Structure formats: C-alpha cells, structure tokens
C-alpha cells in the first residue's frame, strides 16, 4: 500500500515536509515516494498529506494507478479531451 508520484509533478516541494513518514524524496526529473515507507498516512492523518496539498491534478496516484486528485478536482477546469480536437 503506497502512493506514487508521476511525471506531471512540478517539484514544488509542498508535499515533502508534510509526509509523516519522510517517504518523499526530491528526485529528478520529479519527486518520488519510497514505497517501503509510504503508509498513505493511515494512522497519522485522516487525509493523505501529499495529496491534500499537491496542486497538480494527476501527479499522485494510488496503488491501482488512479489519481488521488483527478482532472478538474483542483482547478475546477473541465478535464482536457483525451485526444486533441481537430482544428477547424
């Protein structure tokens, strides 16, 4: 049971100091979560801390690969279409 940070992370550092298990590392090209340390904040906080401050939709995913902050959930912008619209 661990979360994962994926490529769209901007490396803003917001999550790193919040992790109660020091599982987050300022890696390049994007931050990383140590799966051996991550507990998804169970027992520490009601909400996972990294995902509660992360400003980038889709940057943190759960063990099943599902984004904790799905498209539109933070910006209120409608999710981008899966394929680019043809330019008319």
């Amino acid at each position, binding site marked *: 049971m661990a979360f994962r940070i994926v490529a769209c992370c901007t490396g803003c550092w917001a999550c790193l100091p919040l992790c109660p298990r020091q599982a987050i590392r300022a890696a390049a090209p994007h931050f990383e979560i140590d799966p051996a340390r991550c507990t998804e904040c169970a027992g520490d906080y009601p909400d996972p801390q990294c995902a509660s401050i992360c400003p980038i939709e889709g940057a943190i995913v759960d063990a099943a690969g599902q984004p904790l902050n799905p498209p539109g959930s*933070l910006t*209120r912008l409608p999710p981008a279409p899966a394929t680019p619209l043809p330019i008319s």
Partner: protein
Amino acid sequence: METTSQSPSTAARIALHPCYSEQAHRHFARLHLAVAPACNIQCHYCNRKYDCSNESRPGVVSELLTPEQAAQKALAVGAAIPHLAVVGVAGPGDPLANPDRLFATFRALAEKAPDLTLCVSTNGLALPEQVEELVKYRIGHVTITINCVDPSIGARIYPWIFWNHRRIRGRKAAEILIDQQQKGLEMLVARGVLVKVNSVLIPGVNDEHLREVHRVVTAKGAFLHNIMPLIARPEHGTYFGLTGQPEPTADQLRILREACAGQGGATGMMNHCQQCRADAVGLIGQDRGAEFSWEKVAAETVDWQAAVAKRTAVRAAIERRIVLHSQIHHPTSAPASPSGQRTGALQSETLRMAVASNDGRTVDAHFGHAREFLVFDVSPMGARLVERRDIERYCSGPVTCGDAAPALAGAIAALRDCAILLCARIGFEPWRALEDAAISPNSERAGEPIIDALLAVGAEWRDRAPRAVSPAGQRLCA
C-alpha cells in the same frame, strides 16, 4: 504613493523601497529571490506550472534556488548593481508556506548584506503564525494579497486552501483565508511593520467589492494599497485565463483607484506597480534577471564588504540628488502649465526645456537610453524644475516595447511641450524625428552641469531667432 502623509521615520523607511515609494522606484533596484516554491492555496489567476522564462507576471520564475544559492545570487547582484536596495521573496509559491527556506535565506543575508532591506509577499494564510519570526528577522515591509473580505466572493477566487492538514474548499476555505489575512494585517501593524495590500481587480467578481476592501485595510492601518489588474490569458493555463474571465480595462482600473483614493484615510494608493516576476532583478520595469541566472553567478567570488561600501556610497549620492531636486528646483509658486501647451515657445521670456540626465546634475544621458526627462522652465531669472517625466508613462503600447519606433514616439510625446532637448548624445534618426516634432535637440552641452547648460542655451535662444541646426558637428552616435 502620492496620497499618504508620513512621519519622518516612515518616510525614511520607504525612501529606498521601490515598491513602497513612487520616487524610490526611479532610482533604487530590487531583487526577487525565487526560493519559495510551495503554496498553501490555489488562486484562479495562478497556475502552478511556473517554469516559463517568457512571461512577466507574479508567480512565474525561470529557476528555483536553494537558500544558499539565493544568498549567493543576492550578493552577486548587490555587487553588480550598487543601487540595489531591496531583496524580497515573492514566490513562486507563498514564502510563508516555505518558512525554512525563507528564513535560511534571510539568515545568510543578515551578515553579508546587512544594508539591504528584506521584504516578503504573502497570501496571508500562514501569516499569523509567522509574524514573530518575521519581526525577529527585521522584516519591515510585508505585502499581503487581499482580494476580498467577503467569503462568497472569495469562493469565486480561491478553489481550495490547505489548512490544518486538510484540503478545504469553497466558502469555508475563503472564510479561513480572509480571517487569517485580517488577523495577520492587524498583528503586523501592531508591531510597526509597514504593510502593503495587493488586490487583484477581477471584473465582475470583486470590482465593486474592492472599495470595501480598501475601507477595511485602511481602517486597520495598511500603509499602502496596490490595486492591480487581473492578468488572464488562455496561454497562461489559469482558470480565469481558460474560462474567458475578462481583464479590466485601463479605465476600470483608474476609476477604481481614484474612487479608493477619494474615500480618504491614511492608506496611500500605489500607481507604479509593474506586476513583476517572482525572480525580477533591477529597477521596476527593467528586468535584468537574464544577466544573473544561477549559472552566471554560481562561480562568482563576491567581496561583500566592498559591495556594502559601494552600495552605501551610491545610495547617499542618489539621496543627495533627490534632495537637490526637491529643494532647489521644486516648483514653489506658479503651478506648471498644463502639458501640451507650448508655453516655452510662445512666451518670449520663458522657455521650456527637457534634459536627459542620469546623475541628475549634468547633461550626461544618451537620448535613446534616457529613462526619464527633467523638464525645466528657463527664463533670465533662472531655471525651475517643472517635473520629471518617466518615459514609460507615455508608452501606452504593450508592456514590452521591443521596437525602437514606438519607444521613440513615446519619448517624443513626453517632450511635446518642450522647445529644446538637451542630451549628451543622440542618433541621427531621433534627431530628425525631434525636429519634425518642432523640438530642437542639442548635444553641445554634454557633460555640463544642468543649470549652467539650461541658462546658456536659454540665453542663446533669446539672443537669436530659432533656426534649424544641422546635426553636423554635433556629437552623433553611430
């Protein structure tokens, strides 16, 4: 900063700060250190993908610095730009959401650049818990961005905040943020910190409401209120940019600023803000950030003691120059005639002349490089400084004046009521353009004291009828 009357000690505290003093912004430079990446709220006019070197707006930076790198950069910039007076942290996130990085940077600067004024710009959410720390580091200037005092309006600007280990949304989020901002403002004012309030004017969202914001922050003792126009373009990828939220027009901004100024109270209105990037370097409106990238300053060995001494000397020289102008040449009795009337050319005794000068004492500026002109009325009785004219103020085009032609047109517009322009050097093309606008350029007095040059040229003018002077024999630049 035109509307506030200040105590002498406050006047001294803002005299060097370009963001707090309209006068200081012409002379003193500031540096924004991008050490604060994290943010604890989301605003609809911001997006958090801040890596863009081609935009100039708050929240945007090209490279994030560690505290050690930031201190090194500040020392390098402070050695290269002796009129640097202020080092601020304004992002790209919220400085107080990065307290360790922020205060590590300030600690490093306290020893090696003790003469520089430190300041911080924040959204206010974490402000109350950091006030004591800010005071400890002698942060005398803090800017809080306050866009509303009504949570229902705030809910349309802030989709979420991070608070007590949870993401809070909607009206509740705005309530908490507003409470924290107001509490922080009160605490800072109580401790003698000068607070500037920034408000983003968002038409249809908070435009009417900002008068109420002005009333509230005035009552709480904010020093300055800076109402800024919303920047919202689709290419910025912000909520407001992508949803077609209009930016305010120049008229909307001006009318609101005037309305707030008309409400009275001791809080001044700021009218010279250029909405700088979070890594801006130099005078306001002249970003020299590209000259001081980390790559360029990393290896520099800075003699910080020599840099402090040089800055101190330059600062004293600039302050002398400001005092000289305000005391010797400040208009006392007759008000300046309205711009646009060619009083100089019409009245036989008095001639209006402009001077391009960098040091404020001699005719030493190249026409094309002048940032401002000093405008004098010259008569046989002497010369009287009418005003200083910022050239940028006449440039109503896009913010970046890339082309020479609009910049030249702007400079000529700034001189339209002057009969003569004195400068150290001038190119052939601007020479012709000035003559076409019936302004006589004159570079024969290069290097002379301004007053001597004005009186001499005034006497020449009266002695002979105005005639076209060929640029031949003048000091032309290539």
